[in-house]
């Protein structure tokens, strides 16, 4: 297990140059649009409408950012994106937390407490990873109506947990499949119960997969537009829906610089999660428990 990360294929100088060239071009391809957004978000509107999108700003200003955050017209209210940002946070944090914990529990049961037809159950859970969102919109709306959660943040949390648990189960099941069952047996003999084994033995060794799962769930739920647009209304809408409303507001001139700033604001949290959590994306925590 520990030797894998030190091995790499040796390549020749020419191959290596091509690899770097390709990586450089790819990086530019992805960074250029972001760069243009950043560039135009710090220009006054006049410079964009009257000039070149690619030009460097003549006057540097953060007015567009302030407007996007707190004063821009979103729908009918001049609130900026701020309240919707908090809506998204209130939705994403519980949804990511609950779906990750449930996925970890499912993975634990599906690998260490096997029962009859467990693989079939797992297969059925995997379906949720492949069912397109659009198919479930109407039944989901109906269910949210029945349980009295339609139009609320709690409803969105429920929807995202239900959708997220398939993927998080897949991640944890595969991770725990490689987790030595002897450790669970040793803990059983030591007298640890079902949940004690889970949070004293398995969870502390699950760092890498928790990070993977959190990054994945956070990005998906934060970026979701369809569920947000369908199941949340008005002031309860998440950031993505508010951004759309900001850009679609038809009154007055199109404030491109505000739109660019708003779009970057909407993308920042996922970027941040990746940069912060990615550092803990380390393998090899299991080394030493079992000779490998």
């Amino acid at each position, binding site marked *: 297990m520990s030797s894998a990360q030190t091995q790499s294929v040796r390549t020749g100088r020419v191959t290596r140059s091509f690899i770097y060239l390709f990586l450089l071009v790819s990086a530019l391809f992805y960074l250029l649009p972001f760069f243009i957004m950043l560039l135009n978000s710090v220009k006054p509107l006049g410079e964009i409408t009257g000039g070149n999108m690619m030009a460097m700003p003549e006057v540097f200003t953060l007015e567009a950012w302030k407007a996007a955050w707190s004063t821009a017209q979103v729908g009918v209210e001049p609130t900026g994106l701020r309240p919707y940002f908090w809506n998204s946070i209130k939705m994403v944090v519980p949804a990511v937390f609950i779906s990750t914990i449930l996925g970890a529990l499912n993975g634990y049961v599906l690998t260490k407490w096997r029962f009859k037809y467990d693989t079939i159950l797992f297969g059925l859970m995997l379906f949720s990873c492949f069912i397109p969102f659009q198919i479930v919109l109407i039944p989901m709306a109906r269910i949210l109506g029945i349980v009295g959660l339609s139009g609320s943040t709690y409803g969105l949390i429920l929807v995202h947990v239900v959708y997220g648990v398939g993927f998080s189960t897949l991640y944890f099941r595969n991770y725990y499949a490689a987790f*030595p069952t*002897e*450790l669970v*047996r*040793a*803990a*059983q*003999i*030591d*007298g*640890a119960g079902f949940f*004690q084994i889970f949070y*004293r*033995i398995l969870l*502390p*060794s699950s760092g890498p997969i928790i990070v993977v799962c959190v990054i994945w769930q956070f990005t998906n739920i934060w970026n979701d537009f369809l569920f947000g647009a369908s199941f949340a209304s008005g002031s309860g809408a998440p950031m993505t829906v508010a951004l759309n409303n900001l850009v679609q507001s038809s009154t007055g001139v199109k404030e491109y610089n505000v739109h660019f700033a708003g779009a970057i604001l909407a993308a920042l949290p996922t970027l941040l999660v990746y940069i912060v959590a990615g550092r803990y994306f380390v393998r090899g*925590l*299991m*080394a*030493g*428990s*079992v*000779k490998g």
Partner: protein
Amino acid sequence: MSFLNINNVTKSYGSIEVLHQINVSVEEGEFLVLVGPSGCGKSTLLYMIAGLEDITSGDISINNRIVNGVHPSNRNIAMVFQSYALYPNMTVGQNITFGLEMHGVPAPEREKAMNDVAKLLQIEQLLGRKPWQLSGGQRQRVAMGRALVRNPDVFLFDEPLSNLDAKLRVNMRTEIKKLHEKLKKTIVYVTHDQIEAMTLSTRIAVMYQGYVQQLGTPKEIYDTPANLFVATFMGSPAMNILPAKVVVQDNRPHASVATSEGNTVLLPFSQANLAAWQGKDILLGIRPEAITDLDGADRKSSNIVNLQNRVDVTEPSGSDTFVTMTLADRDTIARMRADVSVAAGDVFDFAVNMDKAVVFDPETEERITEG
């Protein structure tokens, strides 16, 4: 009733029975080794004693209490696993005391028990380390420490030495034996290594295909194997098994065996009752160390037979020289002194110690007993 009693125990997975009517009883302080090739059911039996596998029928009792259905943590057993199964997120000290913590032992007592065990196993300086910082031998000690600290009725070892390199394995084997002699605890130990079985145990259960083939002291298992499987499984190199015919000459039964030179030699049996097998085919079992050169023969034996045969291969191992010849059309290995002068192709005078020979019925593969 003995200390650990395995009474008519069977194990089935669906309709497939993997353990058949196992009866083993272990006295307090005994070191029982379950030995057999992989798939023989020895680990399953150990897991059933531990309570990690259900018992299909029969019952297991520990210290006069039937433990069928009792949770592993309440059987007062401790287990050392093949992979050591040390909790990777805990320090050595936490690993050792985890079981006590789960059983609600107060912290000061846990501390004391941990220090006692660490001292016994000489791992005091490791208590603050994580398992990945330990060498194989150190992990092995910690795993034993985790078992010892519980002060259980029975220790269960599941192939604990098979992950160690050859030299360390021999050292740890000695340490386990020392520990047993010091603590006089009841141990059930699973291994596929017949040398571990011979050296460690006070009694051995040889298992094959879900049956206990023979249960006895190491000497009984080695000298009087119950059947052909036990005879060939225990001992390295394996016992030579030669097809032979019983011939009675001068009122004494002999084994008639073909040599490599096309002659037939008569090897007189030490067992008089084999006269009843006159004219019948038998399988003659002779351990390699019972075939030597003339000078190396056992002086205490009353039945050394001289045999001339051609040497096929010699394999000096340093401490011994193994000589392969063809007897009764089978490769037959003799174990000789290291400095014996013998070369491939020679016709050599072998000395066969027939006192040590055992005889098997070729039909049933059971040993033909004396009397």
